[in-house]
């Protein structure tokens, strides 16, 4: 009897939710007078929603790739393809990352799944930081944004490749074979009844979408507040300094959380005042780690690992940019 009452209560909650959404679908834009809301709030919410809408297809792609790996690639198969030597395996991992046409939202669930399946953590990280930069779409957009200066394009691609290997090596020495994933995982394979297998796959996909989605939403919200409120024009005066400019541009790449397909155009808008080195820093650092991705990493990895990862990426990218500048390459 009590159960029945509970069940009815839950049905009512669900129905009310659906009714509410339907109501907003039909009349939502007539319920509120937008002029009664402060402009700042409208700007933030518009930017917020655009980040979410842009990310949803790619999160879904990543989630599906992840559940397909889960269902169709066994741990043994994966192990056979990974070279035994942890350091020698770094280069093939970077090449795999270069061939995966996946951007930074989609790669996080995929890498987490590969690591769960037994791929060494540091190799997963290499794939995670190379895939969003070394891919044809990003090459094309960087090329169009920097047609007058191909150095930026080559430096972006080259540095991403080399830095990813260095980052992977450092992660290996810091964490070795430990698994800083947040949730306990099962070493056994799932044995579902065959008729349920596809349904289970879809169900997993949905669950994973909600797992990572909540972090995406928080990340997008914080990023959109910075997007709307942060005055980029104040940066223009410090763009010429060899040491400060790369740091500034890395910070900017972090808080803006742009897609790697689009960031080249934003970088080129700083082109007239900022050093080439700082633009490359922006273009390499942003896709590897940004605010939005930090939150997504928190969904899967232990906080200690996320902090260490951000630190390593920051030091390696800043260090290489300074080095390249000293060598007069940038």
């Amino acid at each position: 009897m009590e159960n029945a009452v509970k069940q009815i209560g839950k049905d009512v909650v669900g129905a009310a939710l659906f009714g509410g959404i339907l109501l907003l679908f039909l009349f939502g834009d007539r319920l509120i007078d937008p002029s009664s809301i402060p402009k700042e709030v409208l700007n933030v919410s518009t930017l917020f929603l655009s980040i979410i809408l842009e990310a949803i297809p790619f999160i879904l792609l990543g989630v599906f790739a992840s559940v397909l790996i889960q269902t169709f690639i066994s741990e043994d198969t994966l192990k056979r393809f990974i070279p035994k030597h942890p350091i020698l395996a770094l280069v093939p991992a970077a090449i795999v990352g270069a061939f995966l046409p996946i951007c930074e939202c989609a790669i996080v669930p995929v890498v987490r799944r590969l690591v769960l399946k037994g791929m060494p953590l540091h190799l997963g990280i290499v794939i995670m930081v190379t895939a969003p930069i070394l891919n044809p779409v990003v090459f094309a957009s960087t090329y169009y944004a920097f047609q007058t200066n191909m150095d930026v394009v080559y430096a972006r691609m080259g540095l991403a490749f080399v830095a990813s290997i260095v980052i992977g090596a450092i992660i290996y020495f810091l964490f070795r074979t430990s698994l800083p994933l947040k949730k306990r995982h099962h070493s056994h394979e799932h044995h579902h009844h065959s008729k349920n297998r596809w349904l289970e796959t879809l169900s997993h996909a949905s669950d994973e979408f909600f797992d990572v989605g909540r972090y995406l939403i928080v990340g997008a919200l914080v990023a959109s507040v910075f997007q709307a409120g942060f005055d980029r024009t104040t940066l223009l005066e410090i763009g010429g300094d060899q040491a400060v400019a790369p740091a500034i541009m890395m910070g900017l790449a972090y808080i803006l959380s742009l897609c790697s397909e689009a960031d080249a155009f934003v970088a080129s808008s700083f082109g007239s005042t900022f050093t080439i080195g700082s633009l490359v820093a922006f273009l390499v650092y942003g896709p590897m780690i940004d605010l939005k991705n930090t939150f997504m990493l928190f969904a899967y990895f232990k906080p200690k690992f996320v902090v260490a990862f951000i630190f390593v990426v920051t030091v390696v990218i800043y260090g290489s940019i300074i080095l390249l500048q000293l060598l007069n390459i940038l």
Partner: protein
Amino acid sequence: MRSFHMFIRGIILAGYALLLIKLLLTSQLANYVSPKMHPFIYFALFVLLILGGMQIWRSGTNTSECHCHCDGEHPMPKTPAATVFIYSLFLLPLMIGLMLSNHVLDSSVASKRGVQFGAQPLAERSNSPIQTEEKDLLEEYLRDPEGYMKKVDERVNEILQEDNSAVQSKEKEKEQLKKDLIGTDKIVVTDEKYISTITMINEHLEQLIGKKVEITGFVFREKDFPSNQLVVARFGVTCCIADASVYGMLVKGENVAKLKDDTWIKVTGTIQQTTYRQSIIPVIEQPVIEMIEVPDRPYVYEEY
């Protein structure tokens, strides 16, 4: 308990599908995501409908035996407060999208990003790139002639690959646009070629001085503008409006002082040049201003 979560999640997924449908039907999707990315949105809509439908349907059937070992990996929120909080997070974008989709980014955002009068030239480099490169190459050749030749071959192949048809047709388009601009008496800056036209006017300013120009956009002023100056500007979007940059042309004239920021205008005038923050940029003089409604497509999009 699990079936309740499935039910709610199914409804939220269906809600996102409804949001995408509404934005598509009202053609407001382009206010968030560039048309180039719309195929991905269609994909998302399809997936959301399937996932949402499946979750709602399965929440009604008895599913306890199927969830033998999956729960450990995807733990459900434990307390009612956590449940409410997490699902509210997912409802937030939904409510914004269903209620406030009319809003277009305004000049307060533009002023924080800074306007571009065409795609920017890059800053001068401190060293001379060609010389160092040549020196390096020579050293490399002396060290390892065979390896060097192999590298050169690779590099040539690379260049040949880059030099593909897409890039060539883009170059042709640019040449054509340049010819068109120089050939015509009145340049009309269209939405489709907004960024490239503005860039072109900036690059070939000397050849274009004295020509008539027509351009639409919203009114925007930098902090250091005198009262007779404004920028007629648009947000140029690559993927989503979070990556938008501001593109525009400077307008000078006594009749612009009374125009409020964010007013949409069509400006017709003559191209002249002026100096702004130590660089020479185009300016529209003797402007004729016409107030217009906010266009259906307030944003312009990168053309690559």
